[in-house]
């Protein structure tokens, strides 16, 4: 006899029979009479189980444990980075009241998530130097797609200028998002010495078709763009939007995009209290200045302050919903509905825990260790690190002579060390090279271990 399932309280035969009797049916299939006979699924679904909880734990953990246990966090960045997640963050986002709630359609019973997301928006604005943030997009890449579409809705132009060294994955998403709108992305040249955007080329390429100029700092390859203020001016001179892409964890140390003229700021919020999770969930940042023209075009949920009707007490609601799909349908600013709300909460807790001092100190240790790694790696025979003469925050390019980036990684993996991402396919003009990332998760010992591992392969 089948046992009742723990998730199915009405699977107990007497209960089920009683309910069927109450509504006057003899069998469950009496409820499925609208499904034509020919369309009914005969037989059983080919899905293993049901398993007990202990069996599922064993099965799923067993599968996950086929992953190689690395000796230290991977030296990988590029859009997802190993950063420490404080225990308080995990504790808060595990709370059932947050974790298992839906979008706050009923604000009176959902003030907790509404206030938390309002705080996320507010904290993020302080960090970015902006005035309005939405309640998240899926990731940095989709935020870039949405930002380009927003720019085009505002100025009815069709081109986005992007840096040469942009993540190919992010660029691919931008193209998918903007293709139906008839938009195109055009790359800006780079300075061969610094890797940074060639300002003269920007001046040449920006014109009446330019919807937006998009620049990232730190860049995909880790160097900081020094000419952002000038680039913003050039963009504005042609009435194009200036969109900045950022790694928010750098902003305890680096200039806020709101202070160098960004109209929109996007980026990846994963470093602020979210685990890497093999690339998702992530947290697409999206922020603007308090410009009504832009706010009315923003995609996604936005939480605002209001008051109770009685007593005028401060409270929080989803607002400006007339932009959104459930009201505007095909005329909505975006189709986004579910977003990454819980990742917003994680980031709010993270920013609150670290505060200005913590973020500054974190930035310092990250960049110090990254520079230590560059220095040590750069001294190895046949190795150049970094390949560009610019300030690098936590990621940097490493060039290899006499071996391939792939061979280097293979050898490191045999020592259970995950080296940087090979750039040989993404940017072949850089030769055999890789994108390395060092964060506060990598101790001096880890970096020294990496260097020993590299010596091993270089000497072989």
């Amino acid at each position: 006899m089948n046992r009742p399932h723990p998730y199915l309280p009405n699977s107990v035969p007497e209960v089920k029979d009683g309910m069927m009797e109450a509504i006057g049916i003899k069998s469950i299939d009496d409820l499925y009479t609208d499904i034509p006979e020919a369309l009914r699924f005969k037989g059983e679904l080919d899905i293993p189980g049901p398993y007990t909880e202990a069996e599922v734990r064993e099965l799923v953990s067993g599968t996950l444990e086929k992953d190689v246990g690395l000796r230290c966090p991977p030296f990988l960045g590029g859009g997802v980075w190993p950063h420490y997640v404080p225990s308080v963050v995990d504790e808060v986002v595990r709370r059932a009241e947050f974790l298992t709630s839906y979008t706050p359609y009923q604000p009176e019973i959902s003030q907790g998530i509404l206030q938390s997301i309002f705080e996320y928006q507010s904290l993020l604005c302080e960090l970015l130097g902006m005035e309005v943030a939405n309640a998240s997009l899926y990731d940095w890449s989709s935020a870039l797609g949405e930002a380009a579409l927003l720019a085009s809705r505002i100025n009815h132009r069709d081109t986005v200028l992007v840096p040469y060294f942009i993540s190919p994955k992010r660029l691919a998403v931008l193209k998918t998002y903007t293709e139906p709108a008839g938009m195109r992305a055009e790359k800006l040249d780079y300075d061969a010495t610094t890797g940074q955007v060639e300002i003269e080329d920007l001046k040449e390429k920006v014109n009446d078709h330019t919807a937006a100029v998009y620049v990232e700092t730190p860049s995909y390859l880790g160097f900081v763009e020094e000419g952002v203020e000038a680039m913003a001016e050039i963009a504005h001179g042609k009435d194009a939007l200036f969109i900045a892409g950022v790694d928010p964890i750098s902003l305890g140390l680096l200039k806020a995009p709101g202070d160098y003229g960004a109209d929109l700021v996007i980026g990846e919020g994963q470093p602020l209290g979210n685990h890497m999770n093999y690339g998702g969930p992530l947290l697409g940042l999206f922020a603007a200045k308090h410009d009504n023209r832009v706010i009315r075009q923003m995609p996604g949920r936005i939480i605002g302050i209001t008051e109770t009707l009685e007593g005028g007490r401060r409270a929080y609601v989803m607002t400006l919903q007339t932009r959104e799909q459930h009201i505007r349908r095909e005329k909505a600013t975006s189709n986004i509905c579910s977003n990454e709300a819980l990742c917003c909460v994680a980031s709010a807790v993270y920013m609150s825990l670290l505060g200005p001092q913590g973020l500054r100190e974190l930035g310092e240790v990250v960049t110090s260790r990254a520079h230590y790694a560059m220095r040590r790696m750069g001294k190895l025979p046949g190795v150049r690190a970094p390949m560009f003469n610019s300030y690098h925050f936590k990621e940097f390019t490493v060039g290899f002579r006499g071996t391939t980036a792939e061979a280097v990684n293979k050898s490191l993996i045999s020592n259970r060390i995950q080296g940087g991402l090979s750039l040989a396919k993404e940017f072949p003009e850089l030769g055999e090279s890789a994108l390395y990332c060092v964060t506060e998760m990598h101790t001096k010992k880890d970096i020294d271990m990496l260097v020993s591992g590299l010596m091993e392969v270089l000497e072989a």
Partner: protein
Amino acid sequence: MTLRKFRQADWDEPLIFELSHEGRVGFLPPKAEPEVVDAVDEVEELIPSEMLREKPPALPEVSEVDVLRHYIHLSQMNYGVDSGLIYPLGSCTMKYNPIINEVLAGHPRMLGAHPDQDPSTVQGVLEFMYNLRRGYLNVTGMDDATLQPAAGAHGEWTGIMLIRAYHKDRGELGKRTEIIIPDSAHGTNPASAAMGGFQIVEVLSGEDGCVDVEALKAVAGEKTAGLMLTNPNTLGIFDNKIAEISKIVHEAGGLMYYDGANLNAIMGKCRPGDMGFDVVHVNLHKTFATPHGGGGPGSGPVGVKSHLAGFLPVPTIEEKNGVYSLNYDKPKSIGKVHGYYGNVNVMLKAYAYMLTLGGTGLREASELSVLNSNYIARKLKDTRGLSLPYSPEKPRMHEAVLSAAKMNEETGVRALNIAKRLLDYGIHAPTIYFPQIVHEALMIEPTETESVEVLDDFIDAVKKISEMAYSKPEEVLKAPTNTAVGKLDEPRAAHPKTICLSWRRYCSLQRGE
């Protein structure tokens, strides 16, 4: 009747900024080792001066315990399916979110995996994703799938992009400019189709609440790129003319898109792939029991029939001799829709859920979800002031939509007021005012994880509200009163003079700026 005395916590919680005290910290980052400090320059010297932050961000300075308490307080001012009573939010499938899935999703191998790691180091993650995809194909009856979309609407748009690529490949995109969508559809359907560059043609529902086949025939034609449909539809009715609908659209040269928001009704009973659909998306955060996190993250995998497989986003996960790999070599692919592979942590929970239920359990879950919604519909449809519009004699699937139009006319109590009054009993409100084709709609989806006792409580609560509406309507109209805050001035939040979307703005409004 066992209606409870519910009172939600109300901490009158300040904003985190208001808890700030200069010098406090909630977390200490590590310090660089002395050898590291000795080896590299001072940070101020490394960074070009024009890019150095001069003024620190005005973030709050709060101790660890105060941050923790603040957010725990806020959590207590929220309502979740695992902490509340019943969350019958129609179309959102708020079923129990099993704890074991959370435990597994917290596995260090899951949390700490970087998406660009060498595939040889992440065989376990790739294996479960591959197996989840296989189970997904079996439930939906499709041939291939991508797990990349991060949410349902993201999946819809991905599906629309696949339809776009299909017509483009056949040289027909120029003329196939229209997507047909019933008036009862989720708002995301027309929004996703518009983002995919299509015009929307709305087709009205017939008197039975299903697609009006004659109306469909009138609009289907050379311009048709596809039809987006959810079946069972948003009224909770299974459209039994689905085979004919598919035939009309296919004969016009269009493709069939299945919005899987309502899949929870039919697992193991019938499959979109067998109904004639070419593309489907499924919300893992609905049917496969992953928590919705107050708005996300979700996950919206998209399945296709073989004629669309070549257009799926890259990379796809492949298996050969027990070794899993990522394949980027798909020349006709629409490219990428997410920076990496989608919300993998969410997928892990869905995978664990699938195994816990197995094929037979998934079917039973669907059956009981349908039993539960019919139980509620049958017991509530004759409640004073309420009705079950559109084919009241037909069984409902996983959800049922009641109308409070009569009650509104007779007492002034609207669906909104019923929803707010339910909150006072510690019961989450159903979805209201959707689908738009029902006046004063209450869209109720109990899900299979609610016991009959809880369903009876819900039914009693609604009946009691109806009685109150006819005896003391003012009592209903003042709800909610047991929630953390009472009625809100929502227009104020959007008014240009009072709009306030951040703490910074709040401060300047307070200063009268």
